[in-house]
């Protein structure tokens, strides 16, 4: 293409972008002469340059537009929405002609006498056709935007192959035609005018460039102003980036060689080379950075057109338009963003009448916000509209057969809302020309995830919807941790690595690795673990054994969203800057890999995708963060299962204790056990911890290692001496009560074997006489010194026996009953309690019904109630609150139960 034509197309489409923004601003500030002057000048320039290239058709359209603008500037015509729409229509025609011109390199045939006649008629004050014109116009102006729902709507400067680039960092850019791409980041914070900056961040960028130019600073080198920016072809930049990537790899390779040499004369120059490479890399990355405002510049116009078409009042706020990100990423998110804003305007914001009826301001607000966070950029799209209609989504989901009706029951509101990201769901009652055609949010989500981003949705019916997008700043080079598993090396993106833990038999962190469900207890949290070797199915039999037996294992603690998990690896190397190369198409289906790279030593390794690996940690739902802490107990839809720790002590009968009660598992060196009479004590975390045998009177050996189950309560710990830790299992608990043996609650069939369930309370009392005494319960009593009374309703004797001593420790007076009927009987007898704790799943009358009975005018109607249940799905919590429970606690989470009791009581 002819250079001149190329330049013309670039310059003119830049000007068109500015014009779109400025005109929308003008509509809001019709009396701003500076705005008017700028708009007039831009159209004038377009017309002027057309003359040079011999483009009479374009020139005549631009001339007609200039004509109206001239009259407006001179005060002959008022700025009305009709006038602005007409000018916008004129600009759209220019864009259309430009598109053709770009495609064919020739001005298209035809003429625009109709449009020009209307423009001229308007300019001459002939406004008779106004109403008709307006509707006509609204259709026309939005036409290009509507038809290409997910294509780039108009021409971009970039599509001509150019992008403005900073020549020097100090620049005070002056050419507003260069749409101040670089200005935003260059201008000192102080220079930025605060006034309605937020309201119109993109246009403000342009204003800024002018402002700065008017006050050239003293330090500025005279005469150098115009050379602050140069324009280079995007291909050139891309090429540079690729070369830098290769350079980084070669550098890494050299550094690797150097590391193996003890002393080398190359050491100093190589260090220098490394340094320069890093700076070079950063520099080139910077040239690719563009403010996100570039992707937003079309939005004011789109929202404006939509608000006219849909008869709504919408204010678009843009915050953080100067936030920079890689242009490649920018290109990729531009369409999703546009789509989401369009959705907000169309589906989110209500018509003024409805807004007023709901007590909201007539004008709806859509807020776009961008900011940096770590190596990510966060973008929020928030509207104060009607929010998602969960009931409708539910209907649609059922209609589409995505979820069965019974499964739907267990989904929380938030989970149901996530279905808007599914293909084929549109909740718009009427399909408008704008959106609601079932293409959309699924594409948005796919596109964002494609670049390693995430999109989350929060919506409250009647209040509004917020989409939060998080995307990496750049895609090309990332920092990654290099690890080894079964002799193969892999890279894990540093961004998803939270910490590294070395687990060994003797250290504080130990993998409780029992029969395929390994977990790591880390700072009182159970992390599900996944063995890289197993999940990648790497065969190396002899090594596998070696690893299992080795004392040290490395766990890479990763995080995906709110979900934490551990990856068991054999070795951890260094972190390295790696160049991400896309994964070969043949491997693309495998979710655990996100790409590959070449390491310093020249070897090609695969990059792991933490998202994919997280999926391997089992059937843990990634969505439900509430279950994190009980991760080990899993979430397979059967919530009444309890995780039990199985061990052996004394006889051959397996014994079990609820895992939730266990603080940790230890191996203690028997030679370190101290004896005080018959009592064994061991120094544990700077305290003496009593060791209690499960079978009374059994003698502990004096040498070797001893397995101990540690129970902790506040500062105190007690160790239960066992022969062997067998397993952690999840099973439905059905305890047959038998009180013959002291220290046992009874037995249950676990995994087909009769297992004794131990009574933790018994051993705790053995360890500390006052464990259940009055120690540490100050402040939990009422002012008169009366103990708070608790009514515990649970059909499971096991649970009652577990909870009763625990609550006694806390200074509660506990009365327990096994059914709602018995409880109501107490009520009729006139018993009063300070608080009621009730199970939900009970034969006969269940907990929900119990609460309804109590709340329905019984003598206890004012008594606070806390539900305890294995079912802690959000839906259950909602239901619990509905029927009158003050709070809802997961079974076996004793800390939560106690905290909840104190909290609830303090409120009453």
């Amino acid at each position, binding site marked *: 293409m002819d*250079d*001149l034509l190329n*330049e*013309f197309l*670039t*310059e003119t489409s830049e000007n068109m972008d500015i014009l779109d923004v400025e005109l929308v601003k003008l509509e809001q500030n019709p009396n701003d002469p500076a705005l008017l002057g*700028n708009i007039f*000048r831009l159209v*004038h*320039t377009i*017309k*002027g*340059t057309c*003359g*040079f*290239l011999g483009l009479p058709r374009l020139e005549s359209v631009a001339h007609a537009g200039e004509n109206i603008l001239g009259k407006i500037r001179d005060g002959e015509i008022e700025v009305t929405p009709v006038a602005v729409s007409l000018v916008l229509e004129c600009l759209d025609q220019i864009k259309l002609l430009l598109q053709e011109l770009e495609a064919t390199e020739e001005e298209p045939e035809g003429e625009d006498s109709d449009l020009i006649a209307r423009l001229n008629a308007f300019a001459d004050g002939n406004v008779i056709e106004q109403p008709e014109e307006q509707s006509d116009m609204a259709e026309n102006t939005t036409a290009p935007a509507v038809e290409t729902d997910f294509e780039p709507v108009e021409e971009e400067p970039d599509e001509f192959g150019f992008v403005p680039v900073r020549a020097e960092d100090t620049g005070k850019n*002056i*050419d*507003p*035609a260069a749409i101040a791409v670089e200005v935003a980041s260059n201008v000192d914070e102080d220079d930025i005018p605060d006034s309605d900056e937020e309201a119109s961040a993109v246009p403000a960028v342009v204003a800024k460039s*002018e402002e700065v*130019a*008017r006050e*050239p600073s003293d330090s500025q080198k*005279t*005469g150098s*102003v*115009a050379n602050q920016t140069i324009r280079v072809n995007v291909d050139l930049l891309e090429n540079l980036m690729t070369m830098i990537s290769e350079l980084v790899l070669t550098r890494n390779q050299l550094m690797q060689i150097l590391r193996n040499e003890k002393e080398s004369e190359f050491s100093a120059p190589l260090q220098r080379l490394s340094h320069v490479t890093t700076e070079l890399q950063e520099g080139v990355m910077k040239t690719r950075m563009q403010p996100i405002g570039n992707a937003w510049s079309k939005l004011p116009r789109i929202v404006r057109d939509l608000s006219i078409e849909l008869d709504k009042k919408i204010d678009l706020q843009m915050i953080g338009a100067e936030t920079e990100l890689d242009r490649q990423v920018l290109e990729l998110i531009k369409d999703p963003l546009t789509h989401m804003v369009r959705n907000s305007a169309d589906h989110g914001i209500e018509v003024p009448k409805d807004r007023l009826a709901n007590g909201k301001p007539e004008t709806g607000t859509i807020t776009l916000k961008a900011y940096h966070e770590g190596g990510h950029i966060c973008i929020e799209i928030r509207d104060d509209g009607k929010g998602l209609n969960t009931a409708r989504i539910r209907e649609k989901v059922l209609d589409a057969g995505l979820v069965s009706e019974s499964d739907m029951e267990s989904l929380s509101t938030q989970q149901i809302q996530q279905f808007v990201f599914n293909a084929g769901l549109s909740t718009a009652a009427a399909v408008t020309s704008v959106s609601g055609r079932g293409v959309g949010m699924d594409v948005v989500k796919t596109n964002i995830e494609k670049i390693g981003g995430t999109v989350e949705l929060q919506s409250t019916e009647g209040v509004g919807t917020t989409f939060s997008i998080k995307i990496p700043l750049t895609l090309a080079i990332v920092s990654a941790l290099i690890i080894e598993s079964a002799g193969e090396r892999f890279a894990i993106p540093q961004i998803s690595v939270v910490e590294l833990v070395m687990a060994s038999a003797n250290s504080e962190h130990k993998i409780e690795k029992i029969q395929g469900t390994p977990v790591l207890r880390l700072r009182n949290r159970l992390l599900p673990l996944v063995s890289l070797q197993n999940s990648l199915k790497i065969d190396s039999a002899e090594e596998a054994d070696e690893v299992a037996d080795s004392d040290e294992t490395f766990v890479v603690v990763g995080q995906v969203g709110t979900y934490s998990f551990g990856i068991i690896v054999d070795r951890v190397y260094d972190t390295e800057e790696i160049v991400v190369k896309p994964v070969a198409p043949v491997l693309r289906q495998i979710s655990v890999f996100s790409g590959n790279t070449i390491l310093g030593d020249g070897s090609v390794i695969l990059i792991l995708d933490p998202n994919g690996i997280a999926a391997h940690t089992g059937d843990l739902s990634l969505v439900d963060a509430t279950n994190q802490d009980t991760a080990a107990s899993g979430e397979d839809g059967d919530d009444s299962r309890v995780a039990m720790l199985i061990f052996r002590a004394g006889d051959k009968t397996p014994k079990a204790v609820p895992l939730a009660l266990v603080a940790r598992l230890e191996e203690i060196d028997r030679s370190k056990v101290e004896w005080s009479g018959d009592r064994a004590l061991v120094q544990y975390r700077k305290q003496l911890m009593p060791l209690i045998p499960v079978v009374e009177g059994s003698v502990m050996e004096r040498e070797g290692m001893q397995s101990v189950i540690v129970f902790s309560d506040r500062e105190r710990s007690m160790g239960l001496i066992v022969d062997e830790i067998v397993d952690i299992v999840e099973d439905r608990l059905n305890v047959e009560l038998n009180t013959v043996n002291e220290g046992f609650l009874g037995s249950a069939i676990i995994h087909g074997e009769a297992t004794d369930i131990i009574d933790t309370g018994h051993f705790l009392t053995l360890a500390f006489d006052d464990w259940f005494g009055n120690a540490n319960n100050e402040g939990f009593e009422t002012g008169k010194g009366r103990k708070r009374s608790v009514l515990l309703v649970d059909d499971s004797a096991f649970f009652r026996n577990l909870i009763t001593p625990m609550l006694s420790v806390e200074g509660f007076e506990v009365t327990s009953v096994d059914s709602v009927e018995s409880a109501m009987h107490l009520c009729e007898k006139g018993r009063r309690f300070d608080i009621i704790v009730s199970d939900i799943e009970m034969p006969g009358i269940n907990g929900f019904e119990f609460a309804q009975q109590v709340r329905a005018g019984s003598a206890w109607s004012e008594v606070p109630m806390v539900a305890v249940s294995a079912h802690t799905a959000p839906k259950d919590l909602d239901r619990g609150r509905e029927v009158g429970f003050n709070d809802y606690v997961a079974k076996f989470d004793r800390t939560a139960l106690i905290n909840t009791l104190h909290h609830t009581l303090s409120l009453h």
Partner: protein
Amino acid sequence: MKSCLVVDDSRVIRMVARKILEELNFDVDEAEDGQVALERCKVKLPDGVLLDWNMPVMNGIEFLVALQGIPGGADVPVVFCTTENDIDHIREAIGSGASEYIMKPFDSEIIQSKFVQVGLL
């Protein structure tokens, strides 16, 4: 070789002007508005100026007035461009110190003849 400063906010027009002027054997420098042009002139006065009228930041007339304030600035021949067939603008420009005016779109021929008139060729 004589130097000429082309002042216009449009890159396209600067490109055209540069092409024409370089063919006429000028050493061409560019500025995208009056402010930038003025900074250039303060450093080194060109032999001639081809000046647009409607520009952001500092328009052609403002530049002309300021140029007169620079020592020697008043002696620099300035050819003033306009697309508007507006006698007032032309009069204002000539009054502010422009030597000649020229209508856009210009071509090599018209530039050549105007530059001859102001003694640049």
